[in-house]
């Protein structure tokens, strides 16, 4: 597969203590695409990318990166990839430009450090010490150290975790610019909006296995309906009755319940919502709350696993 940046078949990783972090994972990442590994914390995303990055030994399976294998071409692969780890504390006493010069010196060819700094929008901070940068600036510097070797393939592990919305947006812009030059990005995230906005293709990973694969649109479409109606009732009894009732409605593509809240995926709000409200009223069910929203990858995950991606569900939609 010459057009694949990464091929990985039957990948397994069992840690010495017996923890099976990755349990038979298959991936194929086309060159020039942005590929996302989406999953909750502890799903095995980091273990997977660290194996792909050559930082961890796999237990079994096959991995090819840019057509090469880690076993016999480690140095060559490292020349051609860029990596930003989940948490790296770069030397705090070094300045931004000094840090990029250091990383540039490791590669045979690459960008001018000033150019890498420009790419991530840190030019004004060239002389600033890393210790004085904000979280978002540090993260952009980390990405710049990954880009300074002018990689064909860029790995980013949770690139925007802990960043405020503005900092996240800035980093997304950086990645989109990188993408336009025909290079490949592999990123892990537990932010569904990040995966939706950046990725051409997404693998949803849970408990060390791939549970879904596709474009954001096709994955969301697989839930059966672009819209979600969320209804909440004053009592569990009413929720029970509404849940039973909805099973007979053809408009509801799929349903999910958490507590007294019911979520119904539907294709069209304008057609379905009045009908749903009428039927509930006829059944004598009074609503405590009614919300509608666009279906997201979160709903895909919920449909597949019955669980939410993350406990704290309040992720700001940008």
């Amino acid at each position, binding site marked *: 597969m010459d057009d694949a940046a990464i091929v990985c078949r039957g990948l397994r990783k069992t840690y010495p203590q017996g923890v099976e972090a990755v349990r038979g994972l298959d991936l194929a990442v086309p060159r020039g695409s942005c590929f996302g590994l989406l999953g909750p914390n502890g799903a095995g995303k980091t273990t997977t990318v660290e194996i792909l990055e050559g930082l961890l030994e796999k237990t079994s399976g096959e991995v090819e990166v840019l057509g090469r294998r880690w076993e016999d071409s480690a140095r060559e692969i490292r020349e051609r990839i860029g990596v930003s780890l989940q948490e790296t504390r770069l030397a705090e006493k070094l300045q931004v430009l000094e840090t990029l010069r*250091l990383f540039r010196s*490791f590669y045979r060819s*690459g960008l001018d450090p000033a150019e890498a700094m420009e790419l991530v929008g840190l030019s004004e901070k060239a002389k600033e*010490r890393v210790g004085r940068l904000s979280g978002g600036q540090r993260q952009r510097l980390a990405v710049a150290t990954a880009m300074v070797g002018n990689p064909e393939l860029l790995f980013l592990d949770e690139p925007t975790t802990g960043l405020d919305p503005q900092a996240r947006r800035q980093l997304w812009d950086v990645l989109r610019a990188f993408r336009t030059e025909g290079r490949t990005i592999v990123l892990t995230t537990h932010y569904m909006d990040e995966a939706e906005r950046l990725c051409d293709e997404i693998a949803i990973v849970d408990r060390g296995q791939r549970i879904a694969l596709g474009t954001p649109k096709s994955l969301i479409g697989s839930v059966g309906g672009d819209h979600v109606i969320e209804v909440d009732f004053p009592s569990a009894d009413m929720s029970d009755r509404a849940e039973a009732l909805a099973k007979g409605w053809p408009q509801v593509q799929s349903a999910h319940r958490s507590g007294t809240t019911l979520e119904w995926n539907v294709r069209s709000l304008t057609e379905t919502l009045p009908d749903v409200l009428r039927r509930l009223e006829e059944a004598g069910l009074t609503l405590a709350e009614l919300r509608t929203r666009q279906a997201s990858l979160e709903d895909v995950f919920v449909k597949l696993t019955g669980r939410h991606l993350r406990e704290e569900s309040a992720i700001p939609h940008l």
Partner: protein
Amino acid sequence: MKSPRSPIFELILSRLREFWREPEALFWVYGFPILLIVALGLAFPDEAPRPAVDVASLPGHETAAAALRSGGDIDVVVNSLEVARARHRSERTDLVVIPEGEGYVYLYDPSRPEDHLAKVMADSAIQRAKGRPDPVMTRGETVKLPGSRYIDWLLPGLVGMNIMGGGLWGVGFVLVDMRVRKLLKRFRATPMRRSDFLLAILGSRVAFMIPEVFTILLIGKLLFGAPLGGAPLLLALVILAGSICFCGLGLLLACRTERLETASGLTNLAMMPMWILSGIFFSAERFPDAIQPFVRALPLTQLNFALRGVILEGQGLSDIAFPLVMLVGVGGIAFALALRWFRWT
């Protein structure tokens, strides 16, 4: 675009920058040894020893006190016997003279050289006052021997101690800290070579060491007129060999350590025997013959031999060949093992 410099050069430059921008590190490397030198210089001043003698206030003490004072080179105090004994116990006086009948009893501790000197000088003064003749005419001619004072002897020991501490801490701790910060893992993801990295860590430490050591020696010379004998190039060679040895050992201690606490425990464990046995503050040759082979097998013992040989005695390359070979050998073996066992994560 400027072509990038070699990874070794950039790595060394980064380490040097980090070091200079870290005030605490600067203090421990420069400030602490300087304070130590000044403190020890004050505690062991460059003066002819003056014995302190207490005379117990019993009948006959006036004669003894007058006799002791006549020479002018003994500090004499009259105290009650109890006070005098107490002062001797706490080493505030070197000798107690106790009148007894027509004669005197000398109270002193034969294991203290100061007590011996006081006893000999006091006895001579008392006997002469009573009319003991000197059958032979003698006179003293005083000279000043460089390097004979404690501070002169101590300085090379402090230099050795600094090289040991700088190597073990400066390399080991820095490396483990980088591992804890996942910076090593990040470096691992680049095509940078392991040997480049380890050589750079070693090289930057050696680069700090030479100015550090010359600062200590210079302060010693300026403040106390300590000798700086021997060829500077040979001295630099000894410092280099010592640095290679201890940086290599530091690297080895840190090659797999994952926690800072473990690193600090291992380092202290490695330094402890050398602190005690290797002749920093007193000569390693004072230890019994039975443990000398062990004492001499310690790298710091050999480093201190070589440093004192060059600085105090002006020895040549052939005199210190053995310590040099041993230091470089130990460092080389440690480096090779570290390179083999090293873990990035």
